[in-house]
């Protein structure tokens, strides 16, 4: 175990970086965070569309959510693998393909988080804003979303945990993230699959566990501040 970490630790951590492309755990985290950042604005739009009073906006958004939720992430990766190059007209890297697939996946799942966040805001808030003459858009932007986004921060962080685990599927299209790196290490050693995959499992677990600790603390903090004294950051 120690020897594996000594010989292959750097490879598992950052791949061939800085002499080659970034890989391993660093790539896994980059993929997950990029996926989160790229999907966040789209998920907000999705949440708004899902709660729209206009059926012509609501219906297609709902359809997208149901379709994406009904497909395994792996299927999305396959589709992205074949469709993205056709759409953009040239071949794209595995990393880009994986990010596209993850963004589509999160569009549905984080979109639902946003929808739930919007729906959790009491109707009286919108009524108060509209009674003052604010438009639907103004009420959404200035009253509903600022409150909803603060409340849903823990759920969005939970999506990051999901994303980190899902990046492991990049293995199937040879994206050199942590799982693929471990697979390669195992292929070189041949005799120590248990140790290699134990390292892999522990790494994923520790990161996701630490993140869920953060989520819990954040939830408690938000609960406290919403009942006692709201913090300045909520005014954004």
């Amino acid at each position, binding site marked *: 175990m120690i020897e594996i970490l000594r010989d292959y630790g750097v490879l598992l951590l950052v791949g061939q970086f800085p002499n080659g492309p970034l890989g391993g755990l660093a790539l896994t985290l980059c993929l997950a965070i990029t996926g989160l950042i790229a999907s966040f604005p789209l998920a907000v739009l999705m949440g708004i569309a899902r709660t729209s009073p206009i059926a012509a906006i609501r219906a297609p958004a709902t359809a997208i959510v149901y379709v994406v939720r009904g497909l395994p992430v792996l299927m999305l990766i396959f589709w992205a693998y074949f469709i993205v190059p056709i759409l953009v007209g040239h071949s794209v890297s595995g990393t880009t393909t994986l990010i596209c697939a993850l963004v589509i996946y999160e569009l549905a799942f984080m979109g639902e988080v946003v929808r739930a966040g919007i729906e959790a805001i*009491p109707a*009286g*808030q919108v*009524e*108060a*804003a*509209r*009674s*003052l*003459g*604010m*438009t639907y858009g*103004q009420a959404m932007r*200035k*009253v509903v979303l*600022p*409150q909803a986004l*603060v409340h849903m921060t823990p759920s969005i962080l939970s999506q990051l945990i999901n994303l980190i685990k899902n990046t492991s599927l990049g293995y199937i299209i040879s994206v050199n993230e942590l799982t693929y790196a471990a697979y390669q290490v195992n292929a070189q050693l041949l005799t120590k699959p248990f140790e290699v995959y134990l390292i892999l499992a522990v790494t994923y677990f520790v990161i996701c566990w630490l993140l869920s600790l953060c989520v819990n603390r954040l939830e408690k903090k938000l609960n406290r501040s*919403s*009942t*006692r*004294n*709201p913090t300045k950051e*909520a*005014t954004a």
Partner: protein
Amino acid sequence: MISFEGVDKFYGEYQALNNIDETVAKGEVVVVCGPSGSGKSTLIRTINRLEPISKGKIIVNGQDVHGASVDVNKLRSNIGFVFQSFNLFPHLSVLRNVILAPMMVLGMAERDAKERAMKLLAKVGMQHKADAYPSQLSGGQQQRIAIARALAMEPPVMLFDEPTSALDPEMVGEVLNVMKQLAAEGMTMVCVTHEMGFAREVANRIVFMDAGTILERATPQQFFTSPQHPRAQKFISDIRHT
């Protein structure tokens, strides 16, 4: 200033408003009362189109509220509305609550909006809490700010939907005082309220509703001493006993 012409409102099969005809003149203070479920809140919420109506017409400031061509946002900006549950924006400071709509809807500069807001907060006795957040304030304080927030749009008419029903008894007075002051300044007001003391003292007219119908219109004097309709008589005797 406000007129109802044959207004019906249905929730599915249930008729919440039944052939309402009523007029509120400029400067008038009308108190709407009646047992719970009588349609009072529904009635007041149709005036700024928070509730759609099924039939009839409501005219406010010469505009057909439920007409297809009306600019509902412009219309609402001219009708102040105060809710039972205050509905302050919890993520904004008191001052931000008050200046939000003047800036967003009227396009006021922040400095002007703040100046107006501070005057109104002073008027409701809350200027010292301009930087506080709603959750740090009592119900009575929140409701006074909600009134200031509505006044910041300088509406010619104010609607109050049970403004003191969610308050602890000791806070009712401070909100009613603000409302009395508004009435004394000549504001046109429609108030749904159970505060019969307020009705007696401030209202020009009392409208008694039951089962979606206006059963009696009277001056406070007439209403409290010699109600005509049997249901109004029962209502008066019921509130005497509580």
